[in-house]
């Protein structure tokens, strides 16, 4: 959690003290980079998209309305859109959901210690619907709250909780204990 008044910072920025954007950058750059990297597993692409996200946020921050949601959700949403746009540009036949999956590339095996665990998780995640996968990833890997996921995806918290609990319930029947835990440890 940030130890500063985010609303106050944004008010300052919108009042013309744009240099305060640096505070937000410091607070969010790693989160946004991680968010992108978890979905691309490509360093250069992640850096490029992270740059786009922050420049876009800087450009649009005067339009941001704190009463309609948190800055956190807003910038994650920009990141999510940037990833989707990236896939649309790269792949003619890309579908929306592709951008939200955990990528199965060689790169991913380089950045985890337990390849077998990850392979098993991928196997079970493949059985989920795209929207289920997105929620699982946001909760488990991105450590986002239901409130944040709701603001990012535009879904209600109630429907998210219901979807998540059903997903976990389904997985529990299929997954070994360890894999079950990895999915529910941040689901509360």
């Amino acid at each position, binding site marked *: 959690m940030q130890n500063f008044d985010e609303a106050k910072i944004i008010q300052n920025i919108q009042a*013309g003290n*744009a*240099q305060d*954007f*640096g505070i937000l*950058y*410091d607070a969010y*750059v*790693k989160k946004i*980079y*991680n968010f992108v*990297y*978890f979905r691309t597993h490509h*360093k250069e692409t*992640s*850096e*490029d998209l*992270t*740059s*786009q*996200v*922050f*420049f*876009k946020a*800087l*450009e*649009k921050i*005067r*339009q941001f309305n704190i009463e*309609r*949601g948190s800055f956190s959700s807003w910038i994650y*949403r*920009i990141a999510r*859109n*940037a990833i989707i*746009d990236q896939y*649309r540009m790269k792949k003619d036949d890309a579908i929306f959901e592709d951008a939200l999956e955990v990528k199965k590339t060689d790169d*991913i095996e380089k*950045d*985890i*210690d337990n390849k077998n*665990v*990850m392979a098993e998780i991928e196997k079970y995640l493949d059985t989920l619907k795209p929207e289920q996968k997105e929620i699982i990833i946001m909760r488990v*890997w991105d450590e986002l709250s239901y409130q944040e996921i*709701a*603001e*990012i*995806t*535009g879904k*209600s918290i109630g429907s998210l909780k219901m979807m998540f609990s059903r997903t*976990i319930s389904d997985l529990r029947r299929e997954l070994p*204990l*360890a894999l079950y*835990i*990895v999915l*529910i*440890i*941040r*689901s*509360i």
Partner: protein
Amino acid sequence: MEDNITKILQDIYEADNFLRAHEEKLKIIIAKLIKSRPYAMLDEAFRMKLRAEIMERIFLSKKDSKISAPLIINFTIMKKAYYVLGGVAVGALAILPVVYLMGDGTGVLMPKLGTNVSVFEQKIARVSDGAFGTLSAQGQAGQREGSGVAPQGLGGGGGGVAQYGSGVTTDSAIKSTMPAPPGVWVSFKYVYKGDPLSLTGEKMEVLKRIRGGNNSSGIADTLKGMNFGIANLSSFSNTNVQSFSIVENKDYGYMIDVNLTEGIVSISQNWIKWPQSQCIDPDCYEKNRLKAQDMISDGDAIRITNDFISTHSVSLSNYGKPGIMNDWRMYYAKATGFEKENFYFPDTVTVIYPLIVDGKEVYDEYGNPQGLNVNVDVKNKKASGIWNLTSQNYQGSLYGTVTKSDDIMKMVENGGMYGNYDPSAPTIQEVEVGTPTLSYLRVYDYNNGLSDELLVPAYYFPILKGLENYDYMYRKAIVVPLVSEMLKNTGGPIRILNKAEPSSVVAPAEDQPITAPEKVAQ
């Protein structure tokens, strides 16, 4: 990790109390699972580079940096100017006054016709603490910004061991690495004779000059649209204008060089329009050498440069009272016999308008004032150029400062950052220094063809006496940086460690199809 595991266990039990019976096993599993989480390594160099780009964009895009600022250079006074690109006078007029005018806050640099450069207005944008990386001193002596200074009497003096000899003037600056004159080995010990030091606080602001930015793609597009008949310039893509030159096509005309990348404007003689020496043999050169009676007074030199600055509307709002580099007078006064008869009188003298940033003067590590240099051609009694007219946009970042006056005194005694006082030398010459003034130390870091310019808070200790008989010791002060980490790492020019490498990261295009956030459920 233990706390984290405990917290996760609580969350798990809230979701499924059945698992409480397997706690010991769960702890092991959770520990393994935490370690197996995908690891995304945010490159620190990238983080810093992107931050710097964002802050630079913010700074350059502030609405109050618009042209309403005091006018600095009125280029239109050079009415007969044309571009060295040749025959593109119309394009030149469109390009010239352009730079750095901000648009609607989106950060895009927009060309603006018929206006004047405002980038030289001084501004400081605060950024987070330690934003410029670790400041250190290491490596070999670096280059210095081309200063266009007069050839004599400039430069810093070595702070360390030297050998005593007769005063000999040279054409170049003398650093501590100069070969010592033959004679007796003398080491200089600097002794503080001023008031007790007062330390200003735990943190002080280091400034980094923001260069030009070079988002001048619009200018490049204009030029590309012109047909030069030798190549299709429009076939090149993603172009920017990095620099351009204008020459004044008249007697005693000038050449104006604008470096958009570095944010520097220089004015020099358009040589073909100035009188040229007709000499082709040494005797002729000797006969036409300047003599004592040809030299102009310091007052006349400053009057000439003031007139030049006034004529061309160069703003002096960031600069202090001018001073003149006239060390040649001291050397001439001391010279005798053959040296006096054959003394070289400089054909150019330099007037310095010291840069004032945030109320403080700026010096190099040898105590030389940094600022606007205006040269005077002695033979023609005209200003011959201006150097170091730089953009004055800075980022400011707090750094930890020295907390013990003893640390400062130790560096003073040693002769500054690059001094090497040796108490074992056969002859120790004590040099007295007085009460310091708070100033800035200008240092450069050259990387990938670009220079990062930092202004570091420093104490300027004036030298009171002790160097009168050591002509090769040009220095007038000891400058000690107050950033603590710089005092711990001396022995070479300041380097910015862990500095971000240039990145290919670019800002999204204006038509970037990232959608704005929609109204969301809460």
